């Protein structure tokens, strides 16, 4: 598979279970494998996978479960991470580097550093977050052309 053959889009969909720390990172590993086949520049692959990994871990650590839907277009990657609650209580604080509400079990595994959303923002070209007590949705976009090419 290469970008020329990718006429329209290619979709990856994964269910992500709450507290399933052991499987955390599987979605981004799968995404990495697909993006590598597309011969994208390594820096773009890195940015997509870092954003995906942080979003995946956020669903595992903070939500009651959710899913990731990734659409790869010829010129961009669009990821939607959707979960079913309890939502982000203070979004402004959550965007601050170092602010974390992660439980001890996540911290023991090296997560919950308070860098999740800031890392996602730093690695995407567009980030839209909607959150309420019923759930959170992140729309993340990485452009394959533009500032890094």
């Amino acid at each position: 598979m290469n970008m020329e053959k990718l006429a329209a889009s290619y979709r990856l969909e994964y269910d992500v279970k709450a507290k399933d720390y052991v499987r955390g990172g599987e979605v981004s590993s799968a995404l990495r494998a697909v993006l590598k086949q597309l011969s994208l520049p390594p820096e773009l692959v890195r940015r997509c996978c870092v954003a995906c990994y942080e979003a995946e871990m956020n669903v595992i650590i903070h939500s009651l479960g959710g899913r990731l839907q990734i659409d790869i277009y010829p010129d961009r990657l669009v990821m939607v991470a959707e979960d079913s609650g309890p939502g982000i209580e203070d979004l402004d604080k959550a965007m601050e580097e170092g602010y974390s509400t992660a439980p001890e079990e996540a911290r023991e595994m090296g997560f919950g550093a308070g860098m999740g959303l800031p890392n996602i923002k730093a690695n995407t070209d567009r980030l839209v977050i909607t959150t309420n007590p019923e759930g959170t949705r992140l729309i993340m976009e990485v452009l394959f052309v533009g500032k890094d090419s």
Partner: protein
Amino acid sequence: MKLYEVKEILDAEVLSGEDKLDQEVFGACGADLMSDVLAWKGDKGVLLTGLTNPQVVRTAEVVGDVKCIVFVRGKRPSTETMELAKEAGIVLMRCKYPMFVACGLLFSRGLVPDEYGEISRIL
């Protein structure tokens, strides 16, 4: 710096990937926080960490072409971590030194990322 030099400098035990020690690395990251690792551009680098769970390997895979993970303080990773690293082709080592000393040894022997070239002059 070649990986066999990393092994010598840290007096490390190679846990897997003994046949891959001829690879060159150009930088390193010492962290126990996976998000700090994710903020690092790990191309052809070494990750030093005190964590031993499989997420360390997954994180290393995501940040780029990490060649080697060194577990500090003599920690031994789980079987699952070892298996994931083998699949990913990442060399695993463990050394007895604590994080600060392990990082200091590698830095002072010249494993300095390009962007910190200025700092290396004081050594």
